């Protein structure tokens, strides 16, 4: 195998216990997606990842300069800590199915 096929996923090292703790990469499905915002995004779009404290504390994925698409529940404590330290993350939309948005979150 040549390894030229981009759909063949190779380990990023994330979740394997090694490396810097803020070098986060993971796939997740957004919680509580806003249907209106979901209608504006497509597979391949890049979303901002932001820490919020109102109306509740959490981490959200939002359209760049636009509305919140949904909440990120995975690795939430670590993600908030790393965002607080000035790390910048994006969420790439992998697929949208039945109102559900699956993204890959990674550091910019």
């Amino acid at each position: 195998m040549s390894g030229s096929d981009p759909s063949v996923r190779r380990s990023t090292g994330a979740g394997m216990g090694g490396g810097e703790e803020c070098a986060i990469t993971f796939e997740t499905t957004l919680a509580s997606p806003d249907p209106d915002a979901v209608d504006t995004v497509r597979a391949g779009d890049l979303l901002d990842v932001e820490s919020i404290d109102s109306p509740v504390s959490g981490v959200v994925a939002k359209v760049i300069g636009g509305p919140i698409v949904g909440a990120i529940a995975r690795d939430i404590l670590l993600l908030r800590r790393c965002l607080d330290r000035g790390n910048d993350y994006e969420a790439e939309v992998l697929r949208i199915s039945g109102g559900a948005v699956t993204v890959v979150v990674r550091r910019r």
Partner: protein
Amino acid sequence: MIIVGGTYDEVVVQPDSNDLIGSGVRAAAALSNTSTVEKLITAVDKGTLDEFNLVASALRIKDVEIVRRTERVGFRYMTPISPPSINGIGSLTDGSISVDTQTALIFGMVEGGKLTRKVNAEYIVLDPQKPRDTEPISRRGLKGKLVIVANQSETQQLGDDANEVVAAQNLLYSSGAHAIVTKRGASGCLITFSEGSHLRQEAVGAVPSDRVWPIGSGDMFSAGFAYALDQGRDLVEAAMVGSQTASYWCATRRPDIPLHVLSQVDSQFLTPRPGRVYLAGPFFSAAERWLVETVYEELKALGVEVWSPYHEVGPGEDIARADLDGLDSCDAVLALLDHSDSGTIFEVGWAVAKRIPVVGFGNAVEKEGMKMLGGSSVELHRDLSTACYRAAWAAMGMQTRPGWLTN
């Protein structure tokens, strides 16, 4: 409705996944788009509390009563179809919980200790979640119509019979329950209940999805089922709602289930027929044998017969005729395509020529090399659990779709 259930780490090695969720949190999240859930009662240790609060906010779980436990509890899976190892199995809880509501959804919990429960509800939906615990279901502290929602092996153990249909009948009588709902994985579920002096058993099929994340699908079934009962649906309709709730979760992994999935029964339910899957794949290296063994066990657990050359014939020189006779006797093929083993590719071609549906799994196989397969009639997957479920469903009568379905 009040939900009682666990908060657990769920870690999967391949594909990489790591969530703080568990049965109780998952069910409460599932129903967060409804106004039905009054409260989630769960056990959390001091070290997990901050993370739990953030996760509960993200999942819009508003009212939580926390029982303290002594240590964090987690499940670790090699793949979503592998049995988990459990961390923190010695975690203890203490105190008492009191539930007074219309519908209570109670999940069995890993934590031990002296936690006592007093439940008063019209319906008590009890999902024991105790595959290793063969103790009879205790009705102590439970006042209401008890509906036991158990998976196949739990029903067999609790009903003391290898035949799950008979076991469900036994369990209905021995537990004094209003109904038994047996979750049958890819085959859907079986509802066993009394109607007057007669015993009735109704099967509800699964709702096949294009993608299957099976971890937590049983929790989602119970959540959808309990919600539908709470909304006044009968047992069979509630099971249909449970089945489509589980299917939506499997397809999307979205934690909050849309209202239309919970309130309208409009899915295509597969009426399962007995089926046999031919498991094609190389078994030369340790990794290949591990995969064949894992998939073999999973397919059996999904409710189909499996004809595996490795298990039925084994390695050797003069195996072709026996393997192909086995293949001809099957309703579908699951082909393990990584390493593009020539024997496996030949078997796929043979099956395609004989119009036997083929589902292929290749985690690392190059798409370029699969053009003939996907371009003919072979359904292809990068995702292992999806491939297993889709092969089982294909053997039960589901139509496969050529080309790559999971990338």
